[in-house]
């Protein structure tokens, strides 16, 4: 059970993360003036769920805080507290602390200090006198104190204090009447007369009586006086009043608990026998029943009811005189539901079962396993198509099999797809904080947030996105004065968009700020030794420099960006995802960062090249062009280095075979030079023997079995069953020991 609880708890924290994202989004919307009831209800529900689960898993501090936060949200939701800017700001602050609480609960660390925030929340409640109106159940602050063995924390006393729906106790006040002997408490007498409709809505007085019996009760009398004739009988009404006795040792509360679910307006009297109801029933013994001449005592027959409630009910009234005819009918009524349920599943088992549940939660690793298996299937399919002649392929219907396999693959991929909204949801909040820090006003426009991307990609674009937005606000957007002077609106705008293009997701961050100051970037790059002073460099290349490692144009290191790690981190993160980052800037009009990301991390668009009898896969994303060298186009500049002359420029050339210790006696003219783009060494030519073809490959990680090998990002299995290694271009061409940026971990199996 404890493993199971751990697992459930893990899911609870996932839900917390989702809930926090929803709450943040909603609060952000509220801060921007969207105080629609759906928005507020969404935030409430998120916090409410966190509270519910935190109680169940014994996270007392989280429970206590979320509970108080929820109180305020509940009032706001009900419109008793206006969702003013001030209130929303406080709730945003409370949200931060709630996040910290979740983190602390998850990590088992010290909960954050929340006393000040709690005071603020309480102040909001008190400001309109709401505190007192909140239901007493909700405001009970103590529950936190008593954690029990199971890790359950009662939210409030309610658990031990079930009271019936709207039930006004008819019961005689014990203190008013009874003066039980302290030494030996008198036995209880309980009278129970279910109200009209007691058998509706699943009500079942028999169960109450049975529960009382388990505590030692005995039914001593049944008043059937109210029983009408057959024609007037309502099957949902109970017409009887039972009188039971219980041992005095039973706690009153335990007796009351039995009546929890009894319909309101029922007759329920609980009293010490000696004191009150003696008039009616004076310690009647079982034998006395004959004296009443009506019923066999219920306790005798009730235990037989377990399996077939309807039948024994009939036996309850063998001695009945006047009501003999109608009683069986009456008694059959409560049991009616049971046989109905027992039979109908057979008769109507399939009726109404057309639609099945529409979503399930699946462990991500299971999806990855499935994806991996589908990958194997794709590979086996390729092997078959390599081995069979076209005619044989047709004969065994291989094309159809391949089509199905591809469909399965697409489907499995789509299972991992999530709306990119999840990554975008952090942005509004961040922008508001940035606005506050910089004093710049910024409006966010979002397009395409429902675009679906692989979950792994979503998880990894958060950081690049954060950096890009920060960069845009810090460096791109001008101050309000500057903007007005330039004839722009005082508020800057950041457009955030996502769209799918082929197998790529294009995410753009566009600002309408001042654009990149190329003179300054160039000067800085020269100063930092990133480029030489006389290097001929295009505008685009200058723009690209802001992503160079160690580059920062911020004159002062600001709190936001300008730590000098911003944009090069963005670039390397994006490239680690197998994506590309482009920067377009128009001076005075703004800058656009464009991330082109793969839809999935498990499949790579690759160029398969051959070196001797080995084949390698080059990620197509890195390939710029392929050159068949003319004699003399590739020149040695030293015994160990070569360059290729290409349209007046010289690019370094590496012989891929030699990088892996393979000798090739080919001359360059018999080889191909593939120009690839790398982060570590710019554009580089890679010399290979031939190109086999271009295809999608399923990435298999090598690191499960081997130490990381520099220059290799993974492996794949080709159609003929042979293994091809996937080149990690950045690491391969890095001048000195560049680290692998080509992250194949995580997704690949």
């Amino acid at each position, binding site marked *: 059970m404890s493993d199971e609880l751990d697992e459930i708890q893990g899911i609870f924290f996932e839900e917390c993360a989702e809930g926090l994202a929803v709450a943040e989004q909603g609060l952000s919307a509220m801060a921007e003036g969207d105080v629609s009831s759906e928005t507020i209800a969404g935030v409430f529900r998120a916090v409410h769920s966190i509270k519910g689960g935190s109680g169940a898993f014994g996270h007392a501090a989280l429970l206590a805080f979320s509970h108080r936060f929820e109180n305020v949200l509940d009032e706001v939701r009900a419109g008793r507290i206006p969702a003013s800017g001030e209130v929303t700001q406080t709730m945003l602050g409370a949200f931060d602390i709630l996040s910290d609480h979740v983190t602390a609960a998850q990590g088992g660390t010290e909960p954050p200090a929340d006393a000040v925030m709690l005071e603020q929340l309480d102040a909001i409640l008190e400001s309109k006198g709401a505190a007192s109106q909140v239901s007493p159940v909700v405001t009970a602050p103590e529950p936190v104190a008593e954690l029990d063995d199971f890790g359950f924390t009662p939210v409030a006393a309610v658990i031990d204090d079930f009271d019936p729906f709207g039930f006004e106790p008819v019961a005689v006040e014990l203190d008013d009447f009874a003066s039980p002997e302290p030494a030996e408490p008198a036995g209880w007498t309980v009278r129970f007369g279910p109200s009209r409709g007691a058998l509706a*809505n699943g009500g079942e007085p028999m169960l109450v009586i049975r529960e009382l019996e388990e505590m030692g009760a005995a039914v001593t009398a049944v008043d059937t006086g109210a029983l009408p004739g057959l024609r007037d009988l309502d099957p949902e009404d109970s017409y009887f009043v039972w009188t039971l006795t219980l041992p005095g040792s039973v706690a009153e509360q335990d007796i009351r608990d039995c009546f*929890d679910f009894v319909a309101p307006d029922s007759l329920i009297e609980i009293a010490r026998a000696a004191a009150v109801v003696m008039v009616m029933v004076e310690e009647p013994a079982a034998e006395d029943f004959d004296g009443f001449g009506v019923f066999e005592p219920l306790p005798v027959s009730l235990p037989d009811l377990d399996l077939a409630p309807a039948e024994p009910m009939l036996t309850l009234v063998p001695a009945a005189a006047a009501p003999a005819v109608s009683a069986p009918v009456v008694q059959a009524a409560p049991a009616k539901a049971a046989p109905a*349920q027992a039979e109908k599943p057979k008769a109507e088992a399939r009726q109404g079962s057309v639609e099945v549940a529409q979503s399930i939660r699946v462990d991500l690793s299971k999806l990855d396993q499935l994806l991996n298996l589908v990958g194997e299937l794709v590979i086996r399919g390729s092997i078959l198509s390599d081995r069979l002649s076209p005619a044989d392929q047709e004969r065994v219907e291989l094309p159809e099999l391949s089509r199905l396999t591809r469909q399965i693959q697409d489907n499995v991929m789509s299972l991992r797809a999530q709306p990119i909204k999840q990554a975008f949801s952090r942005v509004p909040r961040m922008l508001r904080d940035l606005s506050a820090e910089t004093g710049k006003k910024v409006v966010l426009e979002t397009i395409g947030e429902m675009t679906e991307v692989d979950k792994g990609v979503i998880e990894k674009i958060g950081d690049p996105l954060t950096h890009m937005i920060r960069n845009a606000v810090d460096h791109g957007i001008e101050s309000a004065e500057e903007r007005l002077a330039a004839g722009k609106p005082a508020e800057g705008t950041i457009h955030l968009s996502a769209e799918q293009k082929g197998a790529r997701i294009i995410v753009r961050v566009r600002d309408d700020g001042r654009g990149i100051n190329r003179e300054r970037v160039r000067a800085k790059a020269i100063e930092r030794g990133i480029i030489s002073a006389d290097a001929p460099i295009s505008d685009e290349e200058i723009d690209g420099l802001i992503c160079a490692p160690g580059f920062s144009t911020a004159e002062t290191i600001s709190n936001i960006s300008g730590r000098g790690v911003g944009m090069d981190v963005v670039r390397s993160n994006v490239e680690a995802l197998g994506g590309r980052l482009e920067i377009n800037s128009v001076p005075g009009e703004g800058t656009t960062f464009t991330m082109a990301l793969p839809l999935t991390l498990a499949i790579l668009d690759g160029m398969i090249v051959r070196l001797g009898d080995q084949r390698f896969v080059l990620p197509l994303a890195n390939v710029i062009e392929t050159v068949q060298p003319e004699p003399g186009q590739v020149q040695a500049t030293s015994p160990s280095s070569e360059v290729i002359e290409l349209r007046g420029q010289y690019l370094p050339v590496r012989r891929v075979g030699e990088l892996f210790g393979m000798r090739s006696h080919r001359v360059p003219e018999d080889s191909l030079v593939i120009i690839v783009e790398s982060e570590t060494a710019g554009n580089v030519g890679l010399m290979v023997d031939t190109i086999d073809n271009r295809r999608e490959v399923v990435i298999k990680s090598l690191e499960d079995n081997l130490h990381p090998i520099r220059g290799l990002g993974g492996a794949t299995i080709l159609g003929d069953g042979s293994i091809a290694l996937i080149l990690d271009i950045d690491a391969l061409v890095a001048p000195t020991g560049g680290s692998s940026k080509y992250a194949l971990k995580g997704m690949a199996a």
Partner: protein
Amino acid sequence: MSKLILTVDDSASMRMLLKASLAAQGFRVEAADDGEHGLERMHEVKPDLLITDINMPKMDGFELIEAVRSVPEFRGTPILVLSTEFSDEKKTRAREAGATGWITKPFEAAKLGAAVRRVCP
């Protein structure tokens, strides 16, 4: 055959917790993640007891109960509502919708079992 309980809650952890608690006490458990699915599942599995959360997207617990009660077949099926707090107002509303009783979250396994047996022996 042990009794079959349908639990409806939008929180997966709560569904699992309910399932674990109830299964350990010998009940069979089916689950749905919101009111709409809950109603579909009612028709599919025809449980002996429905336990539903109140605060859920799409169709909330009250609406679910009303919808379930409007089906003649389910008029007598016991329904327990599950919520973190029960004001009198909330209980009345649940009762009016057709609930049989309620359980407060968080629940102890034993209390949950007692409440369940109170309506579904």
